[in-house]
């Protein structure tokens, strides 16, 4: 046989092995679960209920404990140390040093300010455009096609979106034909020497935000559209009888009625934006003054060997989320009390 067939064969066998492992994992899990249920159902009497609780609730609690709670505590602990690379044996506590660095180092400070800009711009525009589309479509016929088209980016990965938007932001030195849509459009409109978008500070940061907004608008539109639909007809009608139309109806009736939903969507988009690192990671890898907290944290932890510094950034991200978490818990409490 020719030697080129050998890698082909091994590639096929790796593929088969991987597929087999899917079946193994899923079937194995279900069989184990079934066996546990089968055995546990023999139990009767006083131990029946406690046993049932342990079996049904135990796996979830154990996994959350191992996967989220303990690691989070460890990360907080790590952020007070001086660990540099993964698996380092000798480390010592250095107090708040990593946090001090985070708030004094000029690069990190810039990163934080830029992250704040993301947290303001992305949610505002996502919810703004989403609300506008929802309002425009409320009461319109045949909206399923535009709705699907606007909603579609929600299903696309941030990496995929970055590739897609690469064909918008591409730049070629002018005499040659442009391959990026943005340059082409602005040049047709009369701007003869547009910048190289992705390298141009601060425009590049806003262009990266556009990708995030592109993904989030559909989510905002769908949720807000449903909330608008849920406004009782009678309320709109009586407002209309009192002369409220168009913008006034929108400002005085519709928006206040769905305020809770707007806040929920805003907080969801804020949290997503705070955590997203894929876009910056893929498009610029944090270069050209585009870095954000979650990207820098990843680099600190896994690229530049400053694990503890990265842990401190992770904790800062966590602290930024806490108020939103507290708000959500309070809302849920309220809902539960009202029935």
């Amino acid at each position, binding site marked *: 046989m020719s030697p080129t067939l050998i890698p082909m064969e091994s590639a096929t066998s790796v593929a088969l*092995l991987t597929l087999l492992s899917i079946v193994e*994992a899923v079937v194995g899990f279900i069989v184990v679960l079934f066996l546990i249920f089968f055995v546990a159902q023999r139990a009767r009497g006083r131990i029946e209920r406690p046993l049932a609780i342990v079996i049904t609730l135990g796996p979830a609690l154990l996994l959350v404990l191992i996967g989220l709670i303990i690691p989070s505590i460890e990360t907080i602990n790590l952020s007070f140390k001086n660990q540099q690379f993964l698996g380092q044996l000798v480390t010592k506590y250095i107090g708040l040093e990593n946090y001090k660095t985070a708030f004094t180092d000029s690069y990190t400070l810039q990163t934080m300010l830029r992250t704040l800009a993301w947290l303001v711009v992305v949610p505002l525009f996502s919810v703004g455009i989403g609300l506008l589309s929802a309002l425009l479509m409320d009461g319109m016929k045949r909206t399923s096609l535009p709705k699907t088209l606007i909603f579609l980016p929600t299903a696309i990965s941030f990496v*995929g979106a970055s590739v897609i938007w690469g064909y918008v932001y591409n730049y070629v030195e002018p005499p040659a034909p442009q391959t990026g849509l943005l340059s082409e459009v602005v040049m047709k409109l009369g701007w003869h020497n547009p910048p190289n978008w992705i390298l141009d500070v601060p425009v590049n940061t806003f262009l990266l935000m556009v990708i995030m907004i592109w993904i989030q608008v559909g989510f905002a539109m769908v949720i807000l559209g449903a909330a608008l639909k849920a406004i009782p007809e009678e*309320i*709109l009608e009586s407002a209309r*009888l009192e002369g409220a139309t168009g913008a006034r*109806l929108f400002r005085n009736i519709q928006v206040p009625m769905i305020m809770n939903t707007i806040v929920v969507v805003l907080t969801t988009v804020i949290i997503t934006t705070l955590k997203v690192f894929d876009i910056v990671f893929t498009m610029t890898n944090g270069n050209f003054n585009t870095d954000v907290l979650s990207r820098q944290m990843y680099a600190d932890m896994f690229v530049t060997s400053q694990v503890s510094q990265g842990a401190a950034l992770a904790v800062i991200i*966590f602290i930024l989320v806490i108020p939103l978490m507290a708000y959500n818990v309070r809302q849920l409490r309220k809902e539960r009390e009202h029935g």
Partner: protein
Amino acid sequence: MTAQTQTTQPGSVDSAIVLKKARKSLSGPIASSAVALIAILWTLPTLGLFINSFRSKEDAATTGWWQFFLHPSFSLSGYRQVLFDNGGMVQPLINSFAITIPATIIPIFIASMAGYALAWMRFKGSDAIFFTLFALQVVPLQMALVPLQQFYHKGLQFYGVTILPAPPVGHGVTGVMAQIWMSHTMFSLPLAVFLIHNFIAQIPGSLIEAAKIDGASDLRIYQSVVLPLSMPAIASFGIFQFLWVWNDLLVAKTFGGSDPAEQPVTARMQSLVGNFGAHQELLAPAGFLSIVVPLIVFLSLQRYFVRGLMAGSVKG
């Protein structure tokens, strides 16, 4: 509210017209064109990728995708290279399935069991557990990455004492895939339990009672009453989770290797993009392949996906 409802009772034909007008306050030709404009703007970028993926290497590298409409050219060489030659997207696609399928199915069982316990087997502290799980939803998974990576290698240790051994995931591709889907399973549980619990809690108590009177045990009730009835919530969560895991890069990068054979599509795409110029011509076909699976899932099951999003964010 009731007063308003009563005043609208007489002359319901009139009020129906008024009502339509109120609803249509913002529609009309201007609104329609605005909607069309947004929809087109939102579609153009993806359309560009799609068109470029079918253009020849030279065309895609030297001219914009819109030139396709003036000088149509069609080539499958990009796809051929990505799928059959050295483009190497086949194994990443398989890897994505190997990660996404277990990471979607396994949490469904674990979360629906937990949701059932928290909704129908209340005990002292079950509310506290529910709220803790709910709050954990927003904990950035960045908080867990480094320690979890250590856990997979060395087990859970406390001052040098091993409390839990590392999970026996094996080596090579399957070991890496297992680490990734296990992480996704753990990270998904807070949302999954919350979402499915809310649905399970609404199952009529009479159904559960009836099963009890028939002598069914708690576990039996889960199996034969709760699990089948919560299918809508499970479908919603399942689609949400499928898209989330398929599209994830952070977890895949952290626990996956740098070897293309051990990467899912997102990580593979990211390294292609990072290789400035080296495989530029593969970006469009590879990019389209990486988004086509979630797009199909999304388009065919959009209804359930929307329901999941609602339950997750605008409950009540």
